[in-house]
């Protein structure tokens, strides 16, 4: 395919993805709005007022960036995993596999579809958070860069999960047993300073720590970890995930017989 045809193919996948999550918005856009509002009310307002300061900010200000990132992560992930697994399940993925669309465009289309939902949810949740906390973004460019890299990363994780999944249970196992614990232990609700050296060391292996702290630095200007390092780690995770996705597509593992 020439570059123009590739662009058409990419755009076609992207539009199809956006149309999908907009069509089922009560399952895709409404839940994060409701859950996050509950988090803001409970942790920020009710409990937060008794916790006092965390990392030099009110507890509400401290948790908001983490909660925004939490919705970006879960929505990016679940968009790609449900859409791609769904296509695999009803065999419509064959429409793409038999076409001349290059593998990298297939991946890019699904990932950017997920990113668009991740960003849309980030905007919705950020708007809601303004009812509860005053947020002023300190480093705008960095904040956007972290959100994008995070969203792309978790879209690729969702893609990998979808390729390996054999049934609908398999696509909920990873979010329940891996993603949610990583998010909760990634420093959304507490500062890593509160942990013992051992647990702080273990946390360094959790990609969510870099995601949450990088973003918190972008918004609030504070972070539990070095921001340059967080950025580098996030980039590294992206490269590894991308290589693995391309490996899966190029060998046709679990997609072609």
């Amino acid at each position, binding site marked *: *395919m*020439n570059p*123009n*045809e*590739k662009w*058409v*193919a990419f*755009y*076609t*996948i992207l539009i*199809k993805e956006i*149309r999908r999550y907009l069509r089922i918005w009560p399952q895709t856009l409404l839940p994060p709005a409701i859950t996050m509002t509950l988090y803001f009310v409970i942790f920020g307002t009710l409990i937060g007022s008794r916790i006092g300061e965390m990392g030099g900010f009110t507890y509400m200000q401290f948790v908001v960036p983490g909660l925004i990132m939490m919705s970006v992560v879960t929505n990016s992930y679940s968009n790609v995993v449900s859409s791609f697994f*769904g*296509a695999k399940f*009803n*065999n*419509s993925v*064959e*429409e*793409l*596999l*038999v*076409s*001349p*669309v*290059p593998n990298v465009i297939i991946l890019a289309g699904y990932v950017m579809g997920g990113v668009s939902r991740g960003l849309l949810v980030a905007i919705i949740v950020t708007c809601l958070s303004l009812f509860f906390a005053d947020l002023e973004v300190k480093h705008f460019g960095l904040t956007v860069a972290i959100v994008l890299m995070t969203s792309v990363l978790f879209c690729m994780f969702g893609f990998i999960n979808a390729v390996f999944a054999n049934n609908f249970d398999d696509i909920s196992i990873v979010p329940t047993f891996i993603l949610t614990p990583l998010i909760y232990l990634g420093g959304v609700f507490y500062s890593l300073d509160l942990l013992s050296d051992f647990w702080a060391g273990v946390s360094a292996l959790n990609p969510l720590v870099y995601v949450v702290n990088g973003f918190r630095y972008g918004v609030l200007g504070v972070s539990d970890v070095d921001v340059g390092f967080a950025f580098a780690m996030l980039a590294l995770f992206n490269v590894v995930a991308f290589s693995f996705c391309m490996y899966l597509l190029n060998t*046709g593992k679990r997609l*072609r*017989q």
Partner: protein
Amino acid sequence: MTAALTISNLQKRYPNGVEALKGISLEVAEGDFFALLGPNGAGKSTTIGILFSLINKSGGSVQIFGVDIDENFPLAKKSIGIVPQEFNFNVFERVIDILVTQGGYYGLPAALSQQRAEKYLQKLGLWEKRFDRARELSGGMKRRLMIARALVHEPRLLILDEPTAGVDIEMRRSMWDFLREINVDGTTIILTTHYLEEAEMLCRNIAIIDHGLIVKNSSMRDLLQQLHTEVFMLDMATSLPPSIALTGYSCRRVDDHTLEVDVDKGQTVNQLFSLLSEQGLEVSSMRNKANRLEEMFVSLLGPAPLEAVDES
């Protein structure tokens, strides 16, 4: 002229050890209407799946219009349109969106996809259904939707895997007419089938596959000529005498006005008619008794390898 499809020594062994293709070779000329005929489990879908890139071959080579799939599969894919055996579209999508999206996957600008979608939905009688979700279509309509989808990028070679399985007779005939029409307009067509009648009605050339091997590959006419005996049913204009003998032919009196005659290879129908005239017997019409292709098949593969023609 390069062939539309050249397959050499194609092999497929599935991970579970099943050897679905044991080295098949085929050539399909551009403009041909070609049948790959064989009983269930013969290896038809496996062959087709390799052409679709959904199945990785274990050995051999495939060229589509001279392009080797190992060298440039994306280029080869642009010239083929694909109608798989099983439905493989998202049933929650609208008919029109399925076609326009397909155009996008082949790099067609949106306006052109839209125009082609309309053209082929019209031709296949689905235009009224364009805003329906695919799940609301009947089985025959779903099959036609897949044909329309395969044509959006106007491929030079259309490949259909058992396109009329589970389609009622009337629908099957209109589908045949449509396929003949696009073949006349220049599209090369390959279809797999286990309906003998289908191959006989539509195709110029045929390969018969069984247990992963090509057991016969010839023109339809040659195949039919190779049959040793044809059995004709003659409807007589005059009533038959109680006993009748025709020198050189074995014949049976079915009833007053019907005679069954075996014509061997080398004998001619003219000869038969002159014998009948000598005895003052006039024939008003004649037809073949059995499906000759079916006999051919039995002689090649042993008894009853195929399902009945009109199972649905």
